[in-house]
């Protein structure tokens, strides 16, 4: 580990506004704090979705006192949801291509892949809105029964995560387009990518456990 007196402090980010000169502080592990923080956040988010999926599995066939109506499982449109799942899966590919593009300093290609990822995410969200709307028209509201509450809470939280991811992707696209985010800060895109892939793996679990397993 370097002596603190030997560290060149001229490039540290404190008080600087020139993004091109941004450098990370050296850390004991050699890992950047931002990336460690994102992984810690993803680990904690596993707990959130673990609890929501557990709750759904516990409540999937339960109605509660004085309530009735269909369950979400009665109304699933598996072919439609399969297409949505495939779209989200492919968005992980475009995301990783955006990361490799910026690492190679191919900024135009990076912008294209970022925008494609955001577009695929939007298609997924549009599909979820359509699914929720059709379920509601079939008589499955949020408070119809315990099963429906658990279903909407689980898939709704996932939808919020995807929506936040889209906002982050569009923000990255704007930063790259304005030249405020270059190859020297490729890790920023990589960290956003980690979040996006996490949203994808959560859906892999939800699609199998909630939709496909009878």
């Amino acid at each position, binding site marked *: 580990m370097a002596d603190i007196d030997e560290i*060149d402090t001229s490039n540290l980010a404190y008080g600087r506004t020139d993004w091109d000169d941004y450098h*990370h502080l050296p850390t004991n592990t*050699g890992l950047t704090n931002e990336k460690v923080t994102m*992984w810690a956040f993803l680990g904690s988010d*596993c707990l959130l979705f673990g609890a929501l999926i557990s709750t759904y599995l516990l409540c999937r066939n339960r109605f509660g006192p004085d309530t009735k109506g269909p369950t979400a499982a009665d109304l699933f449109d598996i072919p439609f949801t*399969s297409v949505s799942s495939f779209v989200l899966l492919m968005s992980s*590919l475009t995301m990783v*291509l955006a990361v490799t593009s910026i690492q190679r300093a191919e900024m135009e290609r990076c912008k294209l892949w970022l925008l494609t990822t955001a577009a695929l995410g939007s298609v997924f969200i549009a599909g979820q809105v359509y699914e929720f709307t059709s379920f509601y028209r079939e008589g499955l509201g949020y408070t119809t029964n315990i099963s429906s509450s658990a279903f909407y809470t689980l898939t709704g939280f996932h939808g919020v995560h995807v929506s936040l991811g889209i906002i982050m992707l569009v923000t990255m696209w704007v930063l790259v387009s304005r030249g405020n985010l270059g190859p020297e800060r490729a890790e920023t895109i990589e960290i956003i990518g980690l979040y996006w*892939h996490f949203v994808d793996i959560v859906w892999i679990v939800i699609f199998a456990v909630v939709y*496909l397993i009878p």
Partner: protein
Amino acid sequence: MDTATASEEETHDEHHDHGLSDVGYIKIALILGVLTAVEVATYFFDFGIVEVPSLLILMVVKFQIVVSYFMHLKFDSKVFSYLFLTGLILAMAVFAAMGTSMVFWQDPTGCDASSFC
């Protein structure tokens, strides 16, 4: 350039060098697409008693592929793996704890804790 900065940059370069090529990522995506197609096939065809185990295995394999290759966990520092696995294990513990409520927490009157009656 001082030692600490040089060491940090070497670490970064090492991480980037060990990823896959674009073609490699496309191949991974194709494998994921095929696995998803197999999953969906279980809805249209009767797989009998192997249906649920097959779906669970496919889910775990897809999860593992995305985490290892797209999220670079296979090539990155073990610290990230430990952070993520901690959350994952705790999440499974939550699932197991809730699962036990359906088996053990029975009310003598016939109304068990998990039935919300």
